[in-house]
């Protein structure tokens, strides 16, 4: 009788491999294999890094595009206008108002007895250029690398702030709708029976509602803002995950190890969280990049229709709408199109790579 486990060769080798890479030691071999498969997909891997780089740049929007300097040295003292407001009197001005750093008078004062470190783009999303000779929208120039929009605001700056808003909004919407969707799917699939029946019928009716029409009605009743839009869009986007999660739970609730867990005396919530949910996470993770991209599209579409964020907010949809209304200024439409297309392509490529990495036909030996 083989009293003790005699590890086979493969087990021994895996063990050695694990010792070499202690960082990944906490992950199961399957997770590691999936990660390797994800990395092996060059397009998806590069897309992920490009997306992360883009996101990182936009997160730092205030120091990339701003109408005030990052750092000012005036009479031997350092000031941080990016983070704090200073009255004009600080820099030898006359009034106790917020400093307008692009005012030639103030700029001259600072240049006399100090220096100012400016961001690469000297506009934020609502700053208007001081050059009154231009007609807006103005074509790209040294001052406005991507031109200005119909109100004289810098397109590049609005783009960076708009991207940040879109991505953050998309992430928030994805997170909230995934949580709601996974929860609803889990309850339906795990308990089945009448709960499942009622839930599915509700989903069918809910899915049959005309989303956009309801959003338009809601937008006319409540003032749209970041959080209200998030709430309203969640009402309809949470359903996307319910189907797959429910199917996974329906399948997994009959597994022996789920039955074994119940026999151990585990309560339902714990069984769901520990034994069934990991099965559903594969499907969920596969869907996430696609949900993220559709969330971004949803916000862009609402902004394009003028039903989204309050007027003046930087947004991709607003840029596209301006492009449509100012066909004589192609830099508006082109910029909007290229950025939206690039962002969505990156997300779809990442999504494809994630999907392939979780494909059991490709990652099980």
């Amino acid at each position: 009788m083989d009293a003790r486990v005699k590890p086979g060769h493969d087990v021994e080798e895996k063990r050695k491999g694990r010792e070499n890479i202690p960082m990944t030691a906490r992950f199961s071999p399957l997770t590691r294999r999936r990660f390797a498969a994800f990395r092996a997909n060059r397009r998806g891997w590069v897309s992920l890094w490009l997306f992360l780089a883009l996101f990182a740049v936009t997160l730092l929007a205030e120091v990339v595009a701003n109408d005030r300097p990052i750092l000012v040295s005036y009479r031997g003292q350092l000031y941080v206008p990016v983070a704090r407001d200073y009255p004009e009197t600080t820099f030898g001005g006359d009034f106790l108002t917020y400093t307008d750093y692009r005012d030639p008078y103030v700029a001259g004062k600072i240049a006399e007895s100090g220096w100012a470190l400016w961001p690469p783009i000297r506009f934020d999303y609502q700053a208007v250029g001081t050059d009154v000779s231009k007609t807006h929208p103005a074509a790209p120039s040294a001052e406005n690398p991507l031109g200005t929009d119909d109100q004289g605001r810098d397109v590049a700056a609005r783009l960076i702030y708009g991207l940040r808003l879109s991505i953050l909004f998309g992430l928030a919407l994805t997170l909230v709708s995934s949580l709601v969707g996974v929860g609803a799917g889990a309850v339906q699939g795990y308990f089945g029976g009448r709960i499942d029946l009622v839930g599915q019928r509700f989903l069918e009716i809910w899915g049959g509602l005309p989303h956009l029409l309801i959003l338009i009605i809601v937008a006319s009743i409540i003032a749209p803002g970041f959080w209200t839009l998030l709430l309203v869009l969640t009402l309809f986007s949470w359903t996307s995950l319910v189907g797959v999660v429910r199917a996974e739970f329906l399948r997994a609730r009959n597994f022996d190890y789920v039955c074994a867990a119940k026999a151990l005396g585990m309560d339902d919530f714990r069984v769901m969280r520990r034994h069934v949910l990991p099965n559903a996470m594969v499907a969920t993770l596969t869907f996430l990049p696609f949900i993220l991209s559709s969330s971004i599209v949803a916000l862009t579409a609402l902004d394009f229709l003028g039903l989204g964020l309050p007027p003046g907010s930087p947004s991709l949809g607003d840029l596209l709408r301006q492009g449509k209304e100012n066909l004589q200024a192609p830099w508006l439409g082109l910029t909007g199109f290229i950025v939206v297309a690039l962002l969505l392509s990156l997300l779809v490529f990442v999504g494809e790579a994630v999907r392939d990495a979780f494909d059991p036909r490709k990652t099980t030996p």
Partner: protein
Amino acid sequence: MSQAKLLEVTDLAVSFGHGAEEVQAVKGVSFTLDKGETLALVGESGSGKSVTALSVLQLLPYPRARHPKGSIRLGGTELVGAPEPTLRAMRGDRIAMVFQEPMTSLNPLHSIERQVAEVLDIHQGMRGAAARARVIELLHLVGIPEAEKRLAALPHELSGGQRQRVMIAMALANEPDILIADEPTTALDVTIQAQILKLLKELQARLGMALLFITHDLGIVRKMADRVCVMCQGEIVETGPVATVFSAPAHPYTQRLLAAEPKGKPNRPAADAPLVMEGKAIKVWFPVKAGLFRHTVSHIKAVDGIDVAIRQGHTVGVVGESGSGKTTLGLALLRLIGSEGAIVFAGTDIAGMSPGRLRPLRRGMQMVFQDPYGSLSPRLSVGEIVGEGIEVHRLAASPAERRAMITAALVEVGLDPDTQDRYPHEFSGGQRQRIAIARALVLKPRFIVLDEPTSALDVSVQAQIVDLLRDIQSRHGIAYLFISHDLRVVRALADDLVVMKDGRVVEAGRADALFASPQTAYTRALMAAAFDLDVVG
């Protein structure tokens, strides 16, 4: 030519993959097969016997699989590397195959007439009335009653045994020279298994075929084969006439295999030990609903009024064919499915108890499942799996204490405690079953339902698990409800026996008395099929 055997396999090797990932499934096997002869390839799972059989038909997933060396000659024609048209003409015509799983080997969307006639059409161009007459003849040959009426039947309308008969009819349609049977009875109940084996033997005698029989069951080999090749890790370690190999095995692996059949006697504890679990008139009826308003028209009586009592340190064996309600009974006793009737565990009636009040009692009653691959969550490490019950019942005050308890449980089932940080897929079937037993044991239960704990395992491992279970029982006085269709395993473990059929008890009593003189015809048939592979009645 007169000296050439029908099938000659010489120094055949099969590899999967390339370079560092190459897996040598078969490493140079040689055997011959002559007309009218039965050769058995026997070995445990992973020994390469099925791969060898598939390579005779050149049905492996080429080019991922390849043959680095060796030849397969059928009546002088080389098959390795032969062009596809040659192989297609040979498959189903000269060499036919019967697969293990009759459910998935038949197309569920086609009638059995169409499936059998298709083979006739491909190789003989036989169609219409002639084909129909031949199909009926074949179905009669394989013993399908009223074959004329069943031509339009779809596979799901047939029983497992009948499906396997249809598979055999398809294989025999063109009167092949060689029939390859790859574990043809493994998925079937014992009595059906005996019938199919008898049928194969009769057909072979009548048609003079050569039979290449692949199995892991030594009982079948003894019953069926003329010669046997014992395979181990891709090599034939011993070959010879069945009688010689069985009476005087030369290779240590063969000796181990032969010695591996479950042996030993039950523990024989005191007959007046206290009752641990008692079920009275247990009923599990599943409603059959029909009509627009889904009203209940009838019930499927999975368990229909069964009394069972298990005393401390005792094992009650529950035997019966698939669908007889054995597992349902086990689940009902543990309150894992709804049931009627009284369930008394350690003096408390738990039948109507709320889940919340039942939860602390769950610690005392555990279950070990049939499939060690399905019963362990692949995403948790061994330590997490075993330690789960400790967490649920808050048995350990500190992580160190928890780890000590897990270690003790793993040592108890004969596993190295260092394995607790690994994942289930790194373990073999027998080791996984030990982990599942450790998961139950760590809670120090008084009662364990063992639901076919050995049937997914190789024979030699089966014997070890049976020894382990008996050992644990004598040490801790745990009561077992041992569910199995394998009477050989039951005999080695059970003190009392319950024979079930269609949800009812056919016969019950002390195991040794029941084995010595079964009272009912059903039990007698079950035992004849299990021990002698004979058909009774």
